[in-house]
C-alpha cells in the first residue's frame, strides 16, 4: 500500500510535484502517465527515498519515507529510468552485490541469483560484463536486481523505453507474473498502450498535478467512448461522444474523410493534457 498526502517537491522556483494525493492498494498495478517533465520521476524518487520531499508526506506499507528509511528499503524494489547497473561487474555479480547489500544470507543469495537469472532469461550470459549487454538485456537485469530481496512493492520508471515489441511483451509478462504473486507495482510509461493492457488503474499527471485517475475504462467514459476523427475537411481533429448514435449524427455533417472508432487511452491522454505524448 502506497499513500501520498499533498506530496510536494520544489527545485528552487520549479514546482516538480505540486501536492499529490494518491492511494495505491496492495496487489495493484498502477501506471503514472504524463508528458515529459510532468513530475513522474520526481514522484518515484521521493517514494524511493532518493530525494526528500519539500512538503507533504508519503507512506509505504505504513512507513514514512522521510523517517523510517531502513523499514521502507526492505519493502521496495526500484528500477530507475536510467540504466544504473554496475558496468564493471558481470550480470551475476550485480545480483550478488545487491543481495549482499540487502543482507541476504549466502546460500539463499546464490539460489535467488540463479533463479532470477533464469526468470529474466539471462542465465547464458550471467558471467559476462554488463557493459557488453544490449539495452533489453540490461533492462531485464535491472528488474531481476530489484527483485533480489523479494520486495512487496516494485517501482518501475519507464521499464520498457527503447525496447523492441517482443522484449516489451516479455517484460509485461514478467510484471504480470510478479503481480500474480502478490506484488504491488507502480510504473511510469510513455507507451499508453502499455498502461492500457497492463494496469488496473492509471493516473495522469501534468505539471506536477494529478489531473485524472481511474481504470482505463473509467477514463475513457469520462471523455467519451466514441471518437470521430476527421481528416482533410474544415473540421480537422477529434471529437468525443458518449455513444455511437451521437457520433454518427455529428459525422454526417463533416466533409473529407472521417473515422469513427472506440476511444483509447491515448485519446484520453491527449484530450486531458492538451498536447501529444512526447511533446
Amino acid at each position: 500500500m502506497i499513500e501520498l498526502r499533498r506530496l510536494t517537491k520544489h527545485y528552487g522556483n520549479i514546482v516538480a510535484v505540486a501536492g499529490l494525493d494518491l492511494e495505491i492498494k496492495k496487489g495493484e498495478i498502477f501506471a503514472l502517465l504524463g508528458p515529459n517533465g510532468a513530475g513522474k520521476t520526481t514522484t518515484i524518487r521521493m517514494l524511493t527515498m532518493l530525494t526528500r520531499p519539500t512538503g507533504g508526506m508519503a507512506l509505504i506499507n505504513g512507513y514514512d519515507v522521510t523517517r523510517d528509511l531502513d523499514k521502507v528499503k526492505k519493502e521496495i524494489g526500484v528500477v530507475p529510468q536510467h540504466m544504473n547497473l554496475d558496468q564493471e561487474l558481470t550480470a551475476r555479480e550485480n545480483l550478488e552485490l545487491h543481495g549482499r547489500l540487502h543482507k541476504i544470507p549466502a546460500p539463499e543469495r546464490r539460489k535467488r541469483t540463479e533463479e532470477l537469472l533464469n526468470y529474466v532469461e539471462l542465465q547464458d550470459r550471467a558471467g559476462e560484463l554488463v557493459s557488453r549487454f544490449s539495452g533489453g538485456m540490461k533492462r531485464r537485469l535491472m528488474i531481476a536486481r530489484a527483485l533480489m530481496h523479494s520486495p512487496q512493492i516494485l517501482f518501475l520508471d519507464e521499464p520498457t523505453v527503447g525496447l523492441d515489441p517482443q522484449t516489451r511483451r516479455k517484460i509485461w509478462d514478467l510484471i504480470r507474473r510478479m503481480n500474480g504473486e502478490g506484488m504491488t507495482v507502480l510504473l511510469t510509461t510513455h507507451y499508453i498502450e502499455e498502461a492500457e493492457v497492463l494496469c488496473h488503474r492509471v493516473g495522469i499527471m501534468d505539471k506536477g498535478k494529478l489531473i485524472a485517475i481511474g481504470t482505463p475504462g473509467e477514463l475513457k467514459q469520462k471523455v467519451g467512448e466514441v471518437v470521430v476523427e476527421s481528416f482533410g475537411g474544415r473540421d480537422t481533429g477529434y471529437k468525443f461522444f458518449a455513444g455511437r448514435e451521437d457520433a454518427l449524427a455529428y459525422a454526417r455533417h463533416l466533409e473529407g474523410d472521417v473515422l469513427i472508432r472506440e476511444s483509447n487511452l491515448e485519446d484520453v491522454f491527449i484530450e486531458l493534457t492538451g498536447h501529444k505524448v512526447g511533446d
Partner: protein
Amino acid sequence: MDFYTVLWREMVVLRRTFYKFFASRLVSPLLYLVAFGWGLGRGLKMNGGNYLEFVVPGIIALSAMNTSFNAVGITLNMSRLYHKTLEEYLIAPISAGAFVLGEVLAGTVRGLLASLIILALAFLFGARLAVNGWFLLVVVLTCFLFAALGVVAAMTINSHEDMANFSTFVILPMSFLCGTFFSPDRLPGAVAYIIEALPLTHASYALRALARGGELLPLSLAVLAAYAVVLFLAGVAVVRKVR
C-alpha cells in the same frame, strides 16, 4: 560488516583489472625515479644522505596520496553524477558510515599497493631504506586520509570538470611542495607555514625519518591520524546529506 560488501565490490573489480592497475601505477613513479633520482639527483647530497634515498619516501607519499584520492574521488564522482550507480547503495539498508568505510578502505588498498610497487622499484634503483611496521602504518594512514578526502570531494563537487580542477589546484601543488622532492624550509616563510599544516608534508617527514633509521615522529603521526579522523567524519556527513 556492511562496509565489507562495499569493499568486496571494489576488490572484485581490482582483481579483474589488476594488470592494468599495476602497469598504470608503474609509470609515474618510474618517471620520478629516473628524473629526480637518477637524472637530477645523481651525486647530489641532501641532508647528508644521497638524494635518491631522500626522494623515495616523498615519491611514496605522493603516490599514496594520488592513487587513493583518485581511486575513490574520480570513481565515486562518476558513480554519483554519471553512472548513477551510487543510487544502488542509497536504496540499500546500509549506513553512510559503512559505505564510506568500504570506499575508503578500497582506496587504501590501492594506495598501499602503489606504494609497495614504488618500494620495489626504488630497491632496484639502489635505494636502501629501512621499512618496518611503522613505515607501513604511516603509508596506510596517508592512503586512508586521502581516500576520505576523495569521498568528500566526490560527494560535494558537482561536475567532472570541477573534479579535475580540484586535482589541479589542490592535489598537484601538494605533490610538489609538501616535502616530497625538497625540504619545505627552503620556501618563503608564509608559504612554509601553510605547507607545514598539510597532511602530505607530515607523510613525507614521517616516512623519510623512518626510512633513514627508524625514527618515529610522533607529531607527524598525530597530524596524519587527526586528518584521517576528521576527513572520514566529513565523508560520512556529506554522504548523509546527499538525499
